[in-house]
């Protein structure tokens, strides 16, 4: 992304970070305040909008019935697709946002589902309706409306929020079909008759951006433009690392890497509780409106 910073501004930014001071007054490991809205896309099974500073993303979860893959008869499938809207930056016009979209989609997928789709974050076997015949496939779509850095972390929060908001309709199997027959089933019409989704295992992602010799959490776009390297670490509520993606830039000393991982784990504790609290708050707001 092109961020126009003068030499003096750059110096101010990097020297500040070296002394533990950031332009917006935050500490090195502080997240910006963020807000969560739930159920904003009526035609989806679950959706959320998360705003962190000027970064603004929408995620939606759609569940569709389909056939499980032959190699995994007792599991549903999850697809994650992130799109960077050109409204977020003129650079995303046309095919301009594709590289970033792919990078974000894959990084999220890896953190949530491992690279062969067996990840610990989402219980895929809970999506099965009839083994080998019918399962729910989840399509997670993300849209970046406005970007001021730290997209991956915000998207991870939004995915977690959207999944917590997701209701999967109850399916009634009407005929106990023989192995080779197509099964008959009915999807419940009652809008209250759905099962929720357990998101306690969905991790948060913390991207540590290294500027100079120091690394910071939740970098803004300006700060990202000065990074030497960045590393995104997914941590779940058990405090286990669920995925690491190094995102370009210069090499890192392995000991620094381990340091960064432990910092991410520390930061994740407070972030996870804030995320949970925000989701809860959004849920209760939604209940009030009804």
């Amino acid at each position: 992304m092109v961020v126009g910073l003068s030499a003096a501004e750059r110096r101010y930014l990097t020297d500040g970070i070296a002394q533990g001071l950031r332009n917006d007054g935050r500490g090195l490991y502080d997240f910006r305040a963020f807000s969560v809205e739930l159920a904003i896309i009526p035609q989806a099974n679950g959706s959320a909008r998360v705003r962190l500073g000027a970064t603004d993303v929408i995620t939606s979860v759609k569940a569709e019935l389909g056939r499980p893959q032959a190699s995994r008869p007792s599991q549903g499938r999850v697809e994650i697709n992130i799109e960077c809207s050109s409204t977020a930056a003129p650079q995303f016009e046309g095919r301009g946002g594709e590289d970033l979209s792919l990078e974000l989609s894959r990084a999220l997928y890896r953190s949530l589902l491992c690279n062969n789709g067996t990840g610990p974050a989402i219980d895929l076997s809970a999506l099965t309706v009839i083994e080998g015949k019918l399962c729910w496939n989840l399509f997670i779509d993300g849209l970046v409306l406005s970007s001021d850095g730290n997209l991956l972390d915000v998207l991870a929060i939004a995915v977690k929020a959207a999944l917590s908001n997701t209701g999967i309709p109850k399916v009634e199997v009407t005929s106990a079909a023989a192995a080779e027959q197509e099964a008959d089933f009915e999807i419940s019409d009652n809008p209250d008759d759905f099962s929720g989704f357990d998101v306690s295992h969905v991790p948060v992602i913390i991207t540590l951006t290294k500027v100079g010799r120091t690394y910071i959490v939740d970098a803004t776009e300006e700060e990202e433009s000065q990074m030497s390297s960045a590393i995104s670490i997914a941590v779940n509520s058990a405090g286990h690392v669920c995925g690491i993606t190094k995102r370009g830039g210069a090499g890192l000393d392995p000991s620094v890497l381990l340091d960064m991982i432990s910092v991410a784990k520390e930061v994740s504790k407070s972030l996870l509780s804030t995320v949970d609290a925000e989701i809860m708050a959004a849920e209760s707001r939604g209940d009030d409106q009804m």
Partner: protein
Amino acid sequence: MAASRVSSYSLESQRVSLARGSSALISPEGVREDGRSPHECRPAFLQTGAVNAAAGSAYAEFGQTKVIVSVFGPRESKKAQAYSDIGRLNCNVSFATFAGSVRGKAGQSTEEKEYSQMLYKGLEGAVALHTFPKTTVDVFALILQSGGGDLPVVLSCASLALADAGIVMYDLVSAISLSRLDTNLLLDATLGEEINQDGSLMLACMASRNEVTQLLLTGEWSQANLSEGLKLCLDACTKLAGLMRSTLKESTSNIED
């Protein structure tokens, strides 16, 4: 390409081993399907100068994984691209249509795009880009046979090809992957092991500078497992770097002869 050894295009049906328990992939005595111990790498074969037309090229074979990388350039950057005071690295990874057990489709797949991005990010930190301003170096990788650990093999092979092309680098990049099945950490996993893994780790590093250029981790890891995995990969990368170095030395001594 000097045929220094008989090529091993054996028609092993490796992909039959779909979705099996970890017990099938590793015996109680700790021996893997192909007879390796858990922390043993596959036999590797490296060679530079595989493609005559390229400025530099390399061929790598790790077990069943076979990769060829050619490097072209530095050449003038495209006119449409803005001025840049550092060089550009254009990375492109593609699978040969016959690389997997199912015939590949034409056109760039998302996997190829992702690998291309990863390759770029793994090399970016190692190449002295400031030595060729305004110009572009193309790195084209072709996976001839996909047998597990494709990306790390591509990364190592690409850095060898860059060295062969005389592109200035801070250090060679060597990369290795590791699969976790239950509690077993299997270094340099095969395809069969990768399909059944519940966690993976891919590490690319510049061994003599002790710097990690790319790191990719999936699955849930405890701190102890993670540290052990990283250490295993780092050690393996150091060993691989030694092998790459000797390959380069050998090829230059051949020229002198």
